[in-house]
């Protein structure tokens, strides 16, 4: 089992969800995040003092999947998130040892979906 974590542009979230649905990945968790990367920030000017905003608004997806779903998920995220401009984001794949469904107590691959 893997935990796939992706940082993407907020406005692509709907499209990513649709691409994942197409690939039959229905479960995920989403968190607000701020990102600092290759994409440059922008200047805000407040009362004449400039500030560089280099923490840009991103959305963090966390999706737990079984091993055979990893590629599909990565594909889906890319299909939904890619614009070809910097700031499109990153996907990280982490190993996951156990997954438990709280409602039933089920464990392992069966608990993921």
């Amino acid at each position: 089992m893997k935990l796939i974590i992706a940082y993407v542009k907020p406005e692509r979230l709907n499209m990513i969800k649709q691409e994942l649905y197409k690939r039959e990945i229905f479960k995920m968790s989403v968190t607000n995040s701020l990102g600092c990367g290759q994409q440059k920030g922008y200047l805000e000017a407040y009362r004449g003092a400039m500030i560089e905003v280099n923490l840009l608004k991103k959305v963090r997806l966390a999706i737990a999947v079984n091993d055979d779903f990893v590629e599909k998920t990565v594909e889906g995220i890319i299909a939904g998130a890619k614009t070809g401009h910097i700031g499109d984001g990153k996907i990280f794949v982490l190993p996951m040892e156990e997954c438990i469904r709280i409602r039933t107590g089920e464990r392992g691959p069966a608990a993921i979906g």
Partner: protein
Amino acid sequence: MKKATAAAIIASSLTSLAAEIPAPVPAESDIAEFMVSNMWVLIGGILVFIMHLGFATVESGLCRAKNCTNILFKNTMTPAIGFLTYAAAGFSLMYPGNSWIADGVFGFNGFGMGIPFTDSVSEAYSYNGKFTYWTDFFFQGMFAATAATIVSGAVAERIKLSAYLIFTVVYVTLVYPVLGSWGWGGGWLSAKMNFHDFAGSTFVHSVGGWAALAGVIMLGPRIGKFVNGKAMAIMGHNIPFAALGVFMLWLGWFGFNAGSALSANPNLISYVCCTTMFGACAGLSGAMLCGMILLRKSDFSMTLNGCLAGLVAITAGADCISPLMAAATGFIGGAAVVPAVLLFDRIKLDDPVGALSVHLVNGIWGTLAVGLFSFNESYTLIGQLTGILSVAAVSFPSALLIFYIIKRTAGLRVSKEEELRGLDIDEHGAEAYHGFQIFTNQ
């Protein structure tokens, strides 16, 4: 009617001042009545002022956080533009007195303010015995910007700041006052058609509403509003703020309507306050009930719209409709908001705050209601219809034209990137709620 009279007096007063005819010395008790009436109209103007806060908060609350500063900026500059341009030319265009160029249709009294300030009460009294020149200007000037503010909400979240400011300057300086002169300035609509629009269902709200419609058409919908031909909900970010705004508008409306009595005639002003309140209360009820039936929910933002709808609707006939019919007028107006919002969505007109349903639909409805419900039978349905149509025939095309010219020159709409990121960052370099974590996927 009332206003036309006032305008006539202004005109003759201006002449008399010019000719230096000695002013009659008024009786002390007339002076006291003069003082009261003048104060009431002044207070009316102050109450109308606070409506601009109402517009600012309703419109910003019903849009998204990322455009909030931009909307507030527009709504703060609008009264400034309205008042300054009205001083420069609008007042003269709206109340030309005897200086008609095309009789009853277009007149102009000269640039700038007319009467110099004098501290003497009796001289001021000679203006018209009810209020001073300055009170008149103050009250009318506050009205001037209101029409533009209506547009602001309908075009929100995608119009360029500069485009909005230019539009406002032109529309408020030229279109609003000339149309107003037809009725309140003693022009053909009031003189020949006995058209009655007590406080502005047509001259303010419809005039604003038609411009809003033109803006919505020229701009097109916000990104994400219509997906595969279906209207999507783009939710307002601060409903409490919008509710605050409705209360502020409701408050200001007592000045808007009862101040339009243009004197402190006790009966008239108190009666108008009552009908205004009936309009609002019934509008709320109408929208609530209609929402429950059509949407199976107590939709709050629509109910708020219903309150404003009731107020717009009663504005034309606040002085000549019975309490019961005032409630009926408001109720129908409020109820109409719900299908109107659905309809505009259906025909793909994206109006983020419901300005069309409130100001245009109910501006028309309220003006008609005078023809239907007025206890003053001299106001006919024909007269009212003439007013509605003639005003539409000028305001809508001219608004379209102004927007079109701006589109070809300065540009009307922000870029796609800017719209997605929000206008606050690009136009103003700052967010409305710094530090607050706001989740967006639009």
